[in-house]
C-alpha cells in the first residue's frame, strides 16, 4: 500500500486554464480532488456602484466590459430594461440590427469558447480555426460600430449606427461560409477519440441540481430542460423567427459541447431569416428625450446571452441616474456548481469541467 498525504494545491489566480483571474484551492488525495474552494473577486470593478453616479447612457460602455466576449448582449439587456421602464417603442430597423448583431455575437462567443475549450484539453489547432472565423465577425462589428471588442453599439431607444452599405450582404455571405466551416470543425474534433475520452461522462449533473443551482444557458439545456428565453419569454423580435432550442440529456461536458455547437447552427438559421426580412429603410432611433429619466419604479429584464440568462434589475427614482442597478450575471451563478462537480474528479478533469461551464471572469466578478 502506498500511503498518500492530503495536499493543498492552489490554482490561479493567474493560470492559463482559468480563463482569467480565477483562483481555486483544491484538496488533493493523490490525483483525486476531495474539496474545492473557488475564490473570486480579483476582477471586481464595482460596476453597480459606479452606475449609481452615471446616467443610463454612460453605464452602457461599462456593460461592455462585464462579459467582454459578448458585449452586444450586455448592451442590449440594459437598454431593454430602460426601454421597458419607459415603455418605448423601438423602430423596426433598429430591432433587426440589434437582433443580427446579437446573433452574430452568440456565434462569435461560442467560437471563442469552442477554441479555448479545446485548447484547455490539449488540442492546439482548433483555437486557430475558431479565431479565423471569429475575426470575420469582429471585423464586421468593427465596420458597424468602430470597435472590435467593446462595441458600445446600442443606445436607449435604438442603435448608434445604421448598417453601412453592403454590410447586410456581408452577413448574408457569412452564413453559408460559416456552415461550411462548422462541417469542417465537426470533422476535425467531434469524432476525435481522444477528445471524446476527455469529455464524455465528465462533470455530470442532473436536471434537478441544475435547476437548484439556477444554471442557465447551455449548462441547463445539457440536462434535458428545454428552457431558452428567446423562445419561452420572448423579447425583441425573436418570436418572428423559426428556430429550435437544442437540448441534450446526458448533462456531461460532452452534452454541453453539443448544445453549444448546435446553438451556432440555430443562430445561423435566425440570421438567415433576419437578413431576408431586413427592412429596406427606416429609423434607427426612437424618439427619446435627451435626458433619460425613466418613471419611478422597478424592473427586471432578462435575455439569453451566450452564457445563459443575463438580467438587469433597475430601481429608478425618476432621476437620470439609476438608484440601484443590479446585473444577474450568468457566469457568476453558473460557477456556483463547480465545487460540487469537482469532488471525486481528478486534477486533469478540473480544467475540462471549468472550461465546460464557460465562464468569463469579467462577468463573474462584476
Amino acid at each position, binding site marked *: 500500500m502506498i500511503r498518500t498525504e492530503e495536499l493543498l494545491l492552489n490554482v490561479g489566480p493567474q493560470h492559463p486554464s482559468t480563463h482569467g483571474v480565477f483562483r481555486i484551492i483544491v484538496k488533493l488525495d493523490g490525483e483525486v480532488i476531495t474539496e474545492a474552494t473557488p475564490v473570486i473577486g480579483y476582477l471586481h470593478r464595482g460596476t*453597480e456602484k459606479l452606475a449609481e453616479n452615471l446616467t443610463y447612457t454612460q453605464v452602457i460602455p461599462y456593460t461592455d466590459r462585464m462579459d467582454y466576449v459578448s458585449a452586444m448582449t450586455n448592451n442590449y439587456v440594459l437598454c431593454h430594461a430602460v426601454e421597458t421602464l419607459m415603455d418605448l417603442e423601438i423602430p423596426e430597423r433598429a430591432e433587426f440590427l440589434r437582433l443580427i448583431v446579437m446573433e452574430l455575437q452568440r456565434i462569435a462567443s461560442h467560437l471563442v469558447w469552442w477554441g479555448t475549450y479545446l485548447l484547455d484539453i490539449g488540442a492546439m489547432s482548433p483555437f486557430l480555426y475558431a479565431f479565423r472565423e471569429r475575426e470575420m465577425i469582429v471585423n464586421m462589428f468593427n465596420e458597424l460600430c468602430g470597435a472590435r471588442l467593446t462595441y458600445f453599439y446600442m443606445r436607449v431607444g435604438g442603435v448608434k449606427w445604421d448598417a453601412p452599405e453592403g454590410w447586410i450582404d456581408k452577413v448574408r455571405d457569412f452564413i453559408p461560409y460559416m456552415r461550411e466551416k462548422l462541417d469542417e470543425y465537426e470533422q476535425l474534433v467531434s469524432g476525435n477519440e481522444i477528445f471524446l475520452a476527455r469529455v464524455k461522462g465528465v462533470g455530470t449533473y442532473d436536471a434537478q441540481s441544475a435547476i437548484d443551482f439556477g444554471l442557465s444557458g447551455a449548462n441547463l439545456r445539457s440536462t434535458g430542460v428545454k428552457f431558452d428565453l428567446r423562445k419561452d419569454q420572448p423579447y425583441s423580435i425573436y418570436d418572428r423567427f423559426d428556430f429550435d432550442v437544442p437540448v441534450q440529456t446526458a448533462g456531461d461536458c460532452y452534452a454541453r459541447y453539443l448544445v453549444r455547437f448546435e446553438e451556432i447552427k440555430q443562430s445561423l438559421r435566425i440570421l438567415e431569416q433576419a437578413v431576408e426580412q431586413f427592412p429596406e429603410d427606416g429609423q434607427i432611433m426612437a424618439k427619446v428625450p435627451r435626458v433619460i429619466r425613466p418613471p419611478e419604479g422597478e424592473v427586471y429584464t432578462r435575455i439569453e446571452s451566450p452564457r445563459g440568462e443575463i438580467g438587469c434589475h433597475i430601481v429608478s427614482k425618476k432621476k437620470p441616474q439609476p438608484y440601484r442597478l443590479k446585473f444577474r450575471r450568468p457566469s*457568476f451563478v453558473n460557477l456556483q456548481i463547480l465545487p460540487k462537480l469537482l469532488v471525486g474528479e481528478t486534477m486533469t478533469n478540473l480544467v475540462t469541467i471549468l472550461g465546460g461551464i464557460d465562464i468569463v471572469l469579467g462577468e463573474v466578478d462584476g
Partner: protein
Amino acid sequence: MSDQKQVTEMDPKESKKNIENIEEEVTEEPSPNQDRLDRIVELIKTNIAEDAIEVAFINELDRDLPCIVIRSPYWVKTAMLLKESELLKLNYLRNVSGIDFETHFEVVYYLLSMSTGNQLDVCIKVKADRENPSIPSITSVWNTANWNEREIYDLLGVQFPGHPNLKRIMMPDDWEGHPLRKDYEPIDPEV
C-alpha cells in the same frame, strides 16, 4: 447649459403623462396576473400565517409582475412552501438583488417555475431594518442563493443567519465597510 434647458422643457410634459397614467390605472381593468397573485396570497395566508404578507401588488411597469412583500420571520417557511406546493413549484431562483433604500434594506427574489410549464415570474421582497439588517438565509431551499447572499452581505452588509459560509466574496476579507451602501465612505479614496 443646453442640457438644463431640455430638462425644464421636458418636465411638464412628463408630469402630464404621469397624471394620465394614474387616471388610466384607476379605470383600467385588473391586470391579467391579478388572479394569480390572489391565489398565491391565499396559499401563503392559509398555510403560513395571516400576517406573513406585508403587502401584495402588481408591478405594471414590469409586464404586470406579481410582487409580494413577506415579513422576514416567515420567509424560510414561505420559501419552502413556494418551492414545494403543487400549484406553484417555484423551483428556479433566477435573481437575488439587495437594495439600500436608506430607510431600510430590501432583498428582492425573482422566482420561476421550471416544471409547471406556465413560465410566469413571481417577485418576492423581504425587508430588513437599516440599523441591524438581517434576513434568514434560503440557501437550504435554493442553492442559487448561496453566492448571491454572500454578495449582498459583502456589498450591502445584510446578515443572512443560517447561511453555511457567509464570508466576503467580491471584496478582500479585511475590507472595511460595505461599498454598495448609500452612505459608504471609502477609507482611502484613492483606491
